């Protein structure tokens, strides 16, 4: 049985595994925590599609697989299409009576990193959301192309150093701001959209359940601190997620039917963003005097976004 109602972490840690422990993800990678939590959020059968990326290359290297469930990978960009058209096949076969077990409940899920979600698979995701399939898309957002060695993505925040947006004598790293994927997905009219973080595991489990139970296309952006490319000690993954949510760099919230915005976690003490940035090697250069303005800009953006989210929540529009 899955742990659909997590009471404590000890119980969760011994929950039924449909995602096997033997995989090749980096020690300290948050991807496996998020995937396990999703797979433990339901007792239903799962059909999972993965885009090419860290998760895919680390969990299905022939002749091994970490997936004790139906799983498919096609290419970098098309997990949303694979999952959504598998769902179409389910509907067709249900209607025609050709399913092996017609009463078996099933959920369709697609995983992608921010590379495949924000960038190369954006069109495929948008198409699947617009078509209204009953599936949930989960982005494991580590803000860079980690699988290929840490290049910039359109999810990489301003000021971060990546191998293709480097910090140097003439550069403070990436100069563009992070794309607001949650807003874009909500604008598709998706019935359920959320941004969740693995440190807030109870909220995450509930969000996953809500997405799986909601009929129609749902999107969840999850924060996945990347020990390798953010450059922090593998034991500090959840500490980094704590800093991400408590600085409001990653606010935790949901949007229902494109309009009803609910903030799911309100830090008691909001931490200045310096603390989050200082904990990661990728932002080291921002603490040089000439780059101080970038930190100020990031803090300003965070404050403005938080203000915006609160006003949206209040206005219910």
């Amino acid at each position, binding site marked *: 049985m899955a742990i659909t109602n997590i009471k404590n972490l000890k119980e969760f840690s011994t929950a039924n595994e449909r995602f096997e422990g033997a995989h090749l993800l980096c020690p300290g990678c948050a991807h496996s925590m998020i995937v396990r939590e999703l797979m433990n959020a339901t007792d239903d059968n799962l059909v999972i599609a993965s885009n090419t990326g860290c998760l895919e290359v680390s969990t299905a290297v022939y002749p091994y*697989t970490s997936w004790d469930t139906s799983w498919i990978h096609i290419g970098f960009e*098309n997990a949303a299409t694979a999952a959504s*058209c*598998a769902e179409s*096949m389910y509907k067709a076969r249900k209607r025609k009576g050709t399913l092996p077990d017609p009463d078996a409940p099933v959920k369709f899920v697609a995983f992608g990193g921010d590379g495949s979600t924000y960038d190369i698979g954006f069109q495929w995701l948008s198409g699947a959301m617009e078509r209204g399939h009953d599936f949930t898309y989960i982005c494991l957002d580590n803000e860079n192309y980690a699988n290929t060695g840490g290049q910039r993505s359109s999810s990489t925040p301003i000021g971060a150093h990546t191998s293709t947006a480097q910090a140097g004598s003439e550069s403070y790293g990436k100069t563009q701001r992070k794309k607001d994927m949650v807003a874009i997905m909500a604008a598709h009219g998706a019935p359920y959209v959320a941004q969740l973080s693995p440190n807030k595991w109870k909220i995450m489990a509930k969000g996953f359940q809500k997405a799986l139970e909601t009929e129609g296309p749902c999107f969840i952006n999850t924060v996945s601190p990347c020990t390798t490319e953010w450059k922090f000690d593998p034991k500090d993954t959840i500490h980094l997620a704590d800093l991400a949510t408590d600085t409001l760099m990653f606010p935790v919230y949901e949007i229902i039917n494109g309009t009803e915005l609910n903030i799911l976690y309100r830090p008691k003490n909001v931490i200045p963003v310096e603390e989050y940035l200082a904990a990661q090697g990728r932002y080291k250069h921002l603490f040089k005097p000439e780059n101080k303005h970038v930190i100020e800009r990031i803090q300003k953006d965070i404050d403005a976004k938080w203000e915006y989210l609160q006003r949206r929540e209040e206005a219910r529009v």
Partner: protein
Amino acid sequence: MAKKFELNEVEVWDGNYATSQALRQAQVDVVAAYPITPSTPIVEGYGAYKANGYVDGEFVMVESEHGAMSGCVGAAAAGGRVATATSSQGFALMTEVLYQASGMRLPIVLCVVNRSLASPLNVRGDHSDMYLGRDSGWINIDAFNAQEAYDLPLCAFKIGEHLDVRLPVMVHQDGFTTSHKAQNVRPLQDEVAYKFVGDYVPVDDMLDFSRPVTHGAQTEEDWHFEHKAKQHKALMDSTKVIDEVFKKFKDLTGREYKRVETYYMDDAEVAIVALGSSVETATLAAKQLREEEGIKAGVVAPRVFRPFPYDLIRDALDKESLKAVCCMDKSAPGGAMGALFNEVSAAAYTTQSRPMITNYIYGLGGRDFSIDEAKRIFKEQKAHADAGHITTPIQQFSGVRGPKLGFFETKRGN
């Protein structure tokens, strides 16, 4: 249950509509498609069946051709019958996923209405798209007219889904020349057609939860080669099933298909090898030349382009009488001989007689290929035969403006 579609014994259909009827009769579970000229009417036809209750399956209009083939792969892995249609740029956009579909051994049927590839942009028929996909690991079958554009998709499901094959299949037809030309077509009744195709048999079904399956795993240098070798063997070995299915189709309909079609080849001295609707043009030219000028002309046409029928091409060309053969490629060769020339030459090299072989590039972007042009090419082959050596460059262009183009000279015979 889908409604039965009332059909006459003889219908007047163009190639596109004939194909869409075949997809309907095969009771495809999921069609994931994106429209593109000249294959659009296949998708539109299917949309009309869906809207009026003639199909029970799902019709998924995706956002691109890459999405269409991606959707086909996802749907096929979920254990049902899947098909789509495309042309040209859409085919090019699908190409990444074509390789994934075949590598994952999913028996999808792709109806390709052949059209040129840009640039320059052109909507007319040539074989650029067919050639682009020729190494993608799919079975490729070629329809030369509307009747065949109906018959061959029915055969394609049965071939690709056969448990000894499990490979995706493309059925090609020429853009406009076949796809938009109305002809008499003799369809099967719905129940007869479906009985011929048969029920879909799922393999590694993602919706069979008693047996979880991983599709699309990664392999590196330790296993990739074995997978690709096995896939190639399956493709090469599919000839047996293709022959069987063609025989069953003949038993049912009287219409006979062979992996290589030959016309007037018994005593031919000169021959054209071609694909698509040009086969019918060349055959008419051969007939007329025999009647009018006594030139023993014949035509060889690979019905199955992949797996390439080296054995049957060899046998078709291995005749004492045959002296000169022209391979006609309707695709810009991009710095090489045409693909058909290369394949046919490889097969012909294994014959005792080793006829002279030349290559014509023709018909690009829908440039018309006429009976007169075919006659001229036959006569040129006759000149080679009479001279005992090739009297022109090996590769020439036919029907193009500007100075005569010729590339590569033989060292044989002169």
